[in-house]
């Protein structure tokens, strides 16, 4: 049995999901030979610290840790002071400067801790630095949850399709936009109407610009370009058009001719724009689903789809990343 001490940084919707999933999957992980112990949970109000593992019952019903914190340590201070093997970083994302997640990840990596994250910002801003930092310190940086949520994409390309040359990836990487476009098509309602419906259902934020202007999708395009295509690009390198200009009439005209209009991110073209997708195409998924077509030399085109967001779904991708760190055997270490 391998003991792994995990620190969770960020206790919002995804943070709650991570606590839930780690609790639910304790037995499965033990059967794999992995004893994951959540020794600390930190948010902007403080830290709950427990050597033998944080009791999920005590924190699950708390929105923040303000009432249950056992220490006032926050952020980088908590990351460096607490003796953990792995940090799960799930603070709110900022695509412009990457903070506070960027500082958290740097602190974790330089103190020799693996990092698993769903936070796009730091990877968009400083992927190559973070990757080098991880390599220099002999630890891993895993971020499957940043692109397409629970839909396997990065691990699929890096592990399952290893040996293939990847020509490109095109897909739907934002469930909010896909939901709005789907509703506009189904009901013939205008953009503003579909948006407020999405907001009512909790699918879109009060300030939806991050999703509907294509910013979120562009962030994912940058992450894919840097991590899978070694491109070293920034957010500003992506040509972005959002979905705010789409009309129900345009969707109807397209549908009549056998097309859906979807917000498609394209790597390595580095574009995010509304695009005509044949209705019969496997990437033309509806509702909040995400999808991606991966173009390869040996395997042809491979298409995946799945839930792109959600607390438990994102936590699932995080769990997979954690497990993969400890199941990875280097080829030269087998002999």
């Amino acid at each position: 049995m391998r003991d792994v001490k995990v620190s969770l940084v960020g206790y919002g919707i995804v943070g709650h999901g991570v606590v839930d999933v780690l609790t639910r999957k304790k037995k499965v992980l033990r059967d794999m030979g992995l004893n994951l112990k959540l020794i600390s949970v930190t948010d902007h109000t403080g830290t709950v610290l427990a050597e033998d593992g944080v009791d999920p019952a005590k924190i699950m019903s708390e929105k923040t840790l303000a009432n249950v914190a056992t220490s006032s340590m926050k952020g980088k201070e908590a990351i460096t002071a607490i003796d953990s093997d792995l940090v799960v970083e799930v603070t709110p994302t900022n695509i412009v400067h990457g903070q506070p997640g960027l500082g958290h990840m740097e602190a974790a990596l330089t103190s020799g801790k693996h990092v698993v994250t769903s936070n796009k910002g730091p990877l968009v801003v400083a992927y190559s630095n973070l990757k080098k930092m991880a390599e220099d310190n002999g630890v891993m940086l895993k971020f499957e949850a940043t692109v397409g949520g629970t839909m396997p994409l990065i691990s699929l390309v890096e592990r399952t399709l290893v040996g293939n040359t990847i020509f490109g990836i095109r897909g739907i990487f934002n469930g909010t936009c896909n939901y709005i476009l789907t509703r506009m098509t189904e009901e013939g309602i205008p953009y503003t109407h579909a948006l407020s419906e999405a907001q009512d259902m909790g699918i879109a934020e009060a300030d939806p610009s991050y999703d509907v202007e294509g910013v979120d999708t562009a962030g994912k395009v940058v992450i894919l370009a840097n991590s899978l295509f070694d491109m070293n690009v920034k957010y500003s390198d992506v040509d972005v058009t959002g979905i705010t200009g789409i009309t129900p009439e345009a969707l109807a005209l397209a549908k009549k001719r056998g097309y859906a209009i979807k917000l498609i991110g394209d790597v390595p073209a580095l574009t995010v724009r509304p695009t005509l997708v044949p209705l019969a195409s496997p990437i033309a998924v509806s509702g909040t689903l995400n999808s991606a077509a991966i173009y390869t030399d040996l395997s042809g085109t491979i298409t995946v789809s799945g839930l792109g967001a959600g607390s438990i779904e994102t936590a699932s991708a995080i769990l997979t990343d954690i497990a993969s760190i400890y199941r990875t055997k280097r080829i030269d270490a087998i002999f």
Partner: protein
Amino acid sequence: MRLSMNLELQDVPGQLLLALQPFKDNKANIISVVHHRDRKTPRGMIPVRFVVEMDRSKIEPVKAKLKECGISVVRSGEDRLLESVSVVLVGHVLDSDLGDTVNRIDSTGYAEVMDLSLSMTGIDEPSSAYLKIRATGKAEIQKALSILRDVGKEKKLLVIEPIETEAV
């Protein structure tokens, strides 16, 4: 240029070879030959469809030679616009001079707008249009799309292009 030609052959041995000879002699590149044995004409002839790439000036000599050999040319015509692409435009499509937008494509000589449907909701509301563009080849389709992108920028129209189904 690419040309399709419908011929009728007699149902006797050696006719297909005979029909191919004039194309070979005039350095035509044969793209496809479909021999319709199952669709005999009332006169007992066998229709054959040729698609060839050849120099425009060689068409008449080939036709003359075929006639000389007793092979009838039922139809021959240039397959000009082989590729097509669908595009949706959103914005003030009509007010920004739709005629001019279409003309920019048509005036290229290698691409044409073949189909157009327009959806308008209100006077000041953005309208939407579906366009089908045909062009002489894949490269020409890309050139036409690039023209449309520029027009879109200039006239503040959202140009929604189809997804590339193959990796570029």
